[in-house]
């Protein structure tokens, strides 16, 4: 970043004392020691103000109806009568910023900053020497922070999903500058991160309840990244048909084995000698070309049932990376996105440990579905699993693996745990997604804080698990995300694992539910078990957009129409038949080939 921003110092104020609000503001990248410094970029204003509200906890006064901290009803009589609406100020700020960025030469950027923003910032600076702990007691300071927060948020409508004006393009530029990890220009990404947001929680009272468009979180070991929006070839979609391929359809006990690497070697690579470890290594693995042909055939069969397939999803560990590359090629050519669990052998890069990852290929919905492989390479996104799966005695019995894995001590998945990341990918305006791999759905840390802050429309949970029934663990964790922040969740497993499972049936329920390969959960209509019919091996899940108004806490902080992908039907299909090989019938051509 250029250093030009810090040389602008016409009037320096005294350095704020230690432990004061001023010192804290300076830590966040603001310049409270300079009288004319103002946050000129809305995400910065939001980050600083929201961080103060979170740090002091004062935002809770918005739900208490404490009028002194309510943004529109401040008690100071001299100003209250003409206090502007923070949302309106934010929208005006956005309009002026877009205009200045487009014309550039006529106006200083700080001149685009509305008078109200300057006033609220000045109100905060007034308390710069106050101890941070005292700030929660100052109603005017807190009202100013709420207003800055609301205005910054309102200025960022459609940020991260559209690029229709210079402000939104500039936001993309800033995101790139921060390696797609934050929208802030002045607040360093290592201290605070702000990303686009898709849902505002409608339950509970947290700092996330205060904004519609921007998500604040403290960066931890997990790198949360917002992908650049891709332009869909067919514009905004009304319907999203997802082909679920719960493959492999058979999992054998021999596909699991106790790791041969133990004792001394395990210690060297970070595995404890007291534990047992297992590898999942299917004995029968189809060639990439054959598998790709089967997927192509599945898409063709599915297309007879629905107008078009927009996406293909496969569960955890279903493909090798080589198989993924072959499948990706046919899926992208058929104009669909691909999300799949991928397994791989150990390498020097993974310290000799196998890896368990998900790979996302978003290119299929764009105009570049028939582009060469190079662009597929750069568009492909890989995310490693964050936690190892621990097979305990109950699970070993449940999956009938007792003859392969020791049921007495816990048996851990032997995989590489690499740098942790989560990627938010937008396929259309109402479908920003992220992927969790099995155990990562159940383990709340460290990913859940980020997911709750951003509130993606849809969370894919790729599992290697038993049938996806309402009474099992994925349902419980999905309901947590559906309630706060309002995500839809699709958990899917392979038919092979679902069939291996012998879950404890509810009393009186004798039906065989081992073909329930997926569970859909959304915040509006609740849960749906998705089962295959006997002999079937794939399923088309249809999703549509439903809109609902979301509100922030406190009066006057605005409402927002949010999109929810909801269940619109599922159809079980069979695509087991191999496509027939085409042979050319021309005699001269065949004769030449033989020669």
């Amino acid at each position, binding site marked *: 970043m250029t250093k030009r921003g810090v040389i*602008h110092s016409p009037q320096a104020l005294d350095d704020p004392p230690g432990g004061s609000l001023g010192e804290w503001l300076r830590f966040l990248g603001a310049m409270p020691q300079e009288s004319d410094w103002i946050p000129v970029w809305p995400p910065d204003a939001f980050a600083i103000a929201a961080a103060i509200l979170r740090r002091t906890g004062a935002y809770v006064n918005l739900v208490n109806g404490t009028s002194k901290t309510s943004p529109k009803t401040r008690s100071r009589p001299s100003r209250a009568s003409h206090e502007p609406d923070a949302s309106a100020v934010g929208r005006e700020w956005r309009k002026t910023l877009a205009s200045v960025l487009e014309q550039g030469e006529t106006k200083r950027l700080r001149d685009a900053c509305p008078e109200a923003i300057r006033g609220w910032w000045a109100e905060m600076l007034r308390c710069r020497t106050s101890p941070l702990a005292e700030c929660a007691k100052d109603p005017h300071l807190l009202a100013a922070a709420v207003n800055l927060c609301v205005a910054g948020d309102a200025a960022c409508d459609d940020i991260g999903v559209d690029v229709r004006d210079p402000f939104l393009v500039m936001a993309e530029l800033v995101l790139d500058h921060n390696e797609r990890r934050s929208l802030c220009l002045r607040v360093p990404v290592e201290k605070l991160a702000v990303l686009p947001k898709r849902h505002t929680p409608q339950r509970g009272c947290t700092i996330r309840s205060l904004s519609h468009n921007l998500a604040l979180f403290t960066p931890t070991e997990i790198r949360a990244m917002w992908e*650049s929006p891709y332009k869909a070839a067919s514009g905004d979609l009304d319907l999203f048909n997802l082909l679920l391929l719960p493959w492999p359809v058979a999992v054998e006990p021999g596909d699991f084995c106790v790791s041969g690497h133990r004792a001394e070697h395990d210690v060297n690579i970070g595995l404890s000698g007291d534990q047992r470890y297992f590898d999942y290594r299917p004995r029968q693995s189809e060639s990439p070309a054959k598998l790709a042909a089967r997927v192509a055939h599945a898409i063709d069969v599915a297309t007879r049932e629905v107008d078009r397939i927009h996406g293909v999803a496969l569960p955890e560990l279903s493909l090798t990376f080589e198989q993924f590359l072959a499948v990706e090629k046919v899926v992208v050519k058929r104009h669909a996105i691909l999300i799949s669990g991928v397994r791989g052998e150990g390498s020097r890069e993974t310290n000799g440990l196998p890896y368990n990852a998900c790979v996302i290929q978003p290119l299929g919905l764009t105009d*570049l579905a028939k582009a060469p492989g190079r662009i597929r390479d750069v568009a492909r996104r*890989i995310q490693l699993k964050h936690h190892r799966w621990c097979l305990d005695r109950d699970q070993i019995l449940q999956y009938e693996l007792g003859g392969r894995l020791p049921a007495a001590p816990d048996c851990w998945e032997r995989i590489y745990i690499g740098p942790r990341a989560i990627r938010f990918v937008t396929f259309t305006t109402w479908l920003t997604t992220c992927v969790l791999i099995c155990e990562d759905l159940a383990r709340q840390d460290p990913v859940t804080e980020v997911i709750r802050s951003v509130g993606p429309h849809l969370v894919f949970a790729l599992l290697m698990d038993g049938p996806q029934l309402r009474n099992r663990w994925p349902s419980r964790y999905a309901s947590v995300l559906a309630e706060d922040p309002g995500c839809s969740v699709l958990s899917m497993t392979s038919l092979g694992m679902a069939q291996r499972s012998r879950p404890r049936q509810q009393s009186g329920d004798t039906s065989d539910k081992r073909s329930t390969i997926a569970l859909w959960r959304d915040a509006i209509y609740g849960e749906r078990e998705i089962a295959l019919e006997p002999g079937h091996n794939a399923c088309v899940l249809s999703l549509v957009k439903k809109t609902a108004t979301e509100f922030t806490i406190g009066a006057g902080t605005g409402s927002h129409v949010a999109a929810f992908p909801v269940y619109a039907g599922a159809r079980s299909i069979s695509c087991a038949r191999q496509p027939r090989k085409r042979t050319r019938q021309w005699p001269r051509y065949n004769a030449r080939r033989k020669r």
Partner: protein
Amino acid sequence: MKKPLFDTGDAESNELSRLLTQERVDSAGFKVPKISPKNDPDLATFHDLIRATKRAKTRKKGISKGQLRKLAGVKR
């Protein structure tokens, strides 16, 4: 250069995003400000970012300008 399998956001991983932003910046109609950076360091910062993006010679091998424009959703 082969893309590392597990990179999680370094420059190589976000290459496509940068290329798309470059196309969007090109078509957004940004102009270099006439006022001096001393008078408006914030605007200068923005334009530094714009200029840096325009200057960036990223690895475009295999990806044409037209393809990037389509993907970025911008017109010539």
